[in-house]
């Protein structure tokens, strides 16, 4: 039996799962930073309107 396909498949699964697990938080971070920037802008607009 040729073992190479099993070995490469195992490492491919490992690489995909670890990459996904490592990159997913970065996508989330960008979304949250965008939300925080929007919140800061809203607060600044509110402060200016009261002034």
């Amino acid at each position: 039996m040729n073992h190479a396909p099993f070995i490469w498949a195992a490492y491919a699964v490992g690489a995909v799962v670890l990459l996904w697990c490592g990159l997913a938080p970065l996508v989330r971070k960008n979304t949250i930073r965008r939300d925080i920037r929007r919140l800061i802008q809203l607060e600044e607009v509110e402060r200016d309107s009261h002034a």
Partner: protein
Amino acid sequence: MNTNATTMTKIKPRKNWLVMFIHKLGSPPWFYNFSGKLIPWLWATFAALTIWGLYLGLYVAPADYQQGESVRIMYLHVPAAWMSMMIYGLMAVMSFIALVWRIRMMEILMMSSAPIGAAFTIIALASGSLWGRPTWGTYWVWDARLTSELVLLFLYLGVIGLHNAIDEPRKAARAACLLALVGAVNLPIIHYSVKWWNTLHQGSSISLTGGSSIDTSMLWPLLIMAVAAKFYYGANLLTRARIKLLEQDMRKGWVKNVVKEQTS
């Protein structure tokens, strides 16, 4: 007066560096800055160790006399399986601390660990299945070790699902901590499953107390990959914890300052 002054000096608490470090760790802005400096080094060490470990495991280490080339899956499967158990064990400890002392950072670290632990469990199950086909002649059997590892994956998913199901973050974390703590009973079952039951899965080849039955040419790449996996966990855990902090403290001044500094 003098006696009182002497007594006051004597009972003044000494500032132990470990206690100071734990106190600082509880401060979100300090944790955010400290972890931000640490993360690039953790990723770099993980990358270097993985390249070294893969080189030794895939090219230098010999094939097994019985399993042939398929033994090379071990350098991925075994570190992933160890990590799946180690992370859950750490989650149980963090949960206990979070539930007893109500430390928010521990809740955040516990919840940030769960997806990483689930990822390692998926890798352990998938690589084990792909190793089983050429070695045992089947991808899956309802063997005690395999089944208890699958239960571990469900526990990870349960902790993540329970946390996501509750809106209030502190309540959600406490419920998830409780489930993580109860689920820790599965860890000794996974570890001792190959001893307690007659399983298709082989017993341990590496022992901390006794001699290991694995040749050093295979042991070194395995240990290097196991250490690399720990650096991956450290880097990923801190990255996730920082993001959770930003999310939970979105309306606090320090988070706004951090984002303003990064934008400007």
